[in-house]
């Protein structure tokens, strides 16, 4: 198969970027999109050009490192990660636009690679649970019903790729953060920090410069893990709950008169 690629090239975070046209020929239809880029890079090295920088790691759809916007769709046409997107999914001879995940909270590193550590900082803000080192409570005293388990697991499968952020016209990170809050706030282990978690994660989202949700639901349409917008409802609910919770203060003291 032959393709014309319009690839985003950008030397560094502050350098202006532009699209560059590349041609790839005799591509194996069974090659993954990343393998196709690998062959392109080998050609570029052979010719002495600068390779196209892009992120990838596991290449089996579980780590969330690969992050390309292909023809405007974060990850590609099929609601799977870029590494699980195959060249047979594209029309022979077509032109394919390849861009990074675009969001101002994701500063460019080079070409198609962006810095998504803003998402890590959202996790840092609330993605932990307290564990006592002393005697442990009886497990039966902290039951997790199958329904809760299902809800939590459906959110915990988030691989943190950031496709939801790239898809959002408002540049919001609500699906991602919603998944984290749904995951931890529904489990017994997550209860001690429940309200602090919602507040801190929302504050962190804002401070990173992510936008706000307008309930378009486009994030969920590109999520390779098929996380639904119910986690956004959960985040809204948990935030509403937490914003009303009184912070712990010292008990009032009486004064004589």
């Amino acid at each position, binding site marked *: 198969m032959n393709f014309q690629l319009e690839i985003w090239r950008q030397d560094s975070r502050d350098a202006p970027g532009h699209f560059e046209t590349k041609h790839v020929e005799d591509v194996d239809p069974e090659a993954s999109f990343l393998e196709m880029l690998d062959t392109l890079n080998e050609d570029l090295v052979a010719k002495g050009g600068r390779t196209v920088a892009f992120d990838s790691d596991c290449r089996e759809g579980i780590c969330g490192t690969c992050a390309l916007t292909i023809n405007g769709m974060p990850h590609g046409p099929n609601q799977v990660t870029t590494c699980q997107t195959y060249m047979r999914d594209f029309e022979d001879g077509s032109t394919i636009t390849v861009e990074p995940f675009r969001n101002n909270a994701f500063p460019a590193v080079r070409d198609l690679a962006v810095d998504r550590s803003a998402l890590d900082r959202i996790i840092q803000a609330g993605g932990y649970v307290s564990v006592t080192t002393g005697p442990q409570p009886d497990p039966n005293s902290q039951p997790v019903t199958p329904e809760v388990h299902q809800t939590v697991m459906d959110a915990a499968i988030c691989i943190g790729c950031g496709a939801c952020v790239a898809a959002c016209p408002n540049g919001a990170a609500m699906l991602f953060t919603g998944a984290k809050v749904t995951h931890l706030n529904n489990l017994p282990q997550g209860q001690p920090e429940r309200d*602090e978690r919602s507040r801190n994660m*929302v504050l962190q*989202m804002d401070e990173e410069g992510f936008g706000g949700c307008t309930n378009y639901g486009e994030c969920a349409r590109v999520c390779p893990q098929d996380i639904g917008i119910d986690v956004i409802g959960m985040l809204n609910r*948990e935030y509403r709950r937490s*914003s009303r919770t009184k912070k*712990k203060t010292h008990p009032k003291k009486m004064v004589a008169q």
Partner: protein
Amino acid sequence: MAGSLIGAVRCGAASDPPPRASISYVTPDTEYRQGDNRLWGVGRNIDVDVATRELRRRRRTWIGEAWDSNVGKKLAVALTGIVLVGYVVLHMIGNLTALLGAGEAATGGAQIDDYGHWLREFGTPLLPAETFLWAVRIFLLASLVVHVVGVYQLTMRNRAARPAGFPAKRIGRSWSARTMRLTGPLLLAFIVFHILHFTLLAVDVTPLAHGEIYSNVYGAFQKWYFVVLYLAAVAALGYHLRHGVWSLFQTLGLDTPARNAYLRHGSTALAVFVVVGFWMVPISFATGALPEPVTGPNAPTEVSK
């Protein structure tokens, strides 16, 4: 990557130690945008001033903190949206009294005039006339202001969050959702016009008089352009509500997978209900289904009879 971090376990205390009350300086590579009184760490080197940030976070009242955050601001938009929707539904039902006709000159004219009078007099003799009316007006105006200011600020933040010139591809947002920022401002313009027209009686293309509601409306809807304008404005309202009413449930965190279909279809039904209800009035007047007024400036004079 990011997903794996969530398993990290913090041993020991259940809550954070109190923030250090030290003064820390904004580092040169951390630029702050002072948009609506909060800090935005654009330089993303945020860890440096954890202490200042913590102090700022904790000093605020819960309502201030909520209004500052994108999630909380949207919550305010949703809550004021409820007020506005509630008003719109009551207003629509009130308008339907126009369909009761022109009444008899002997008994003081149309039902809708009496209804308007009743609204003005509501609460008397306990309260001076129009007190209740003004309380509602102020409450509605405040809700509208919060709604519009919230939406405006959120829209600006949303613009700032994506690189200019690279809008996201449209992947399935509904037509009504996509046009919220069009139907919203249209509604605002219409609300201003509508108040000038029938409340302040400042758009006197057709003869208008205080308290002669039936006559005023009858006169206006003899002109095709007023009919078109009102029908169009109500259609915009319908689109706004089709997304808006469902959206407010999602924003309040009340939508769940089990309820989703009911809420979505319910808000479509509400939008249709409101649109049809409001449309009845101009359509009835324009088609001549309603009689001429018996009082007011549009009532036919003895001569013309």
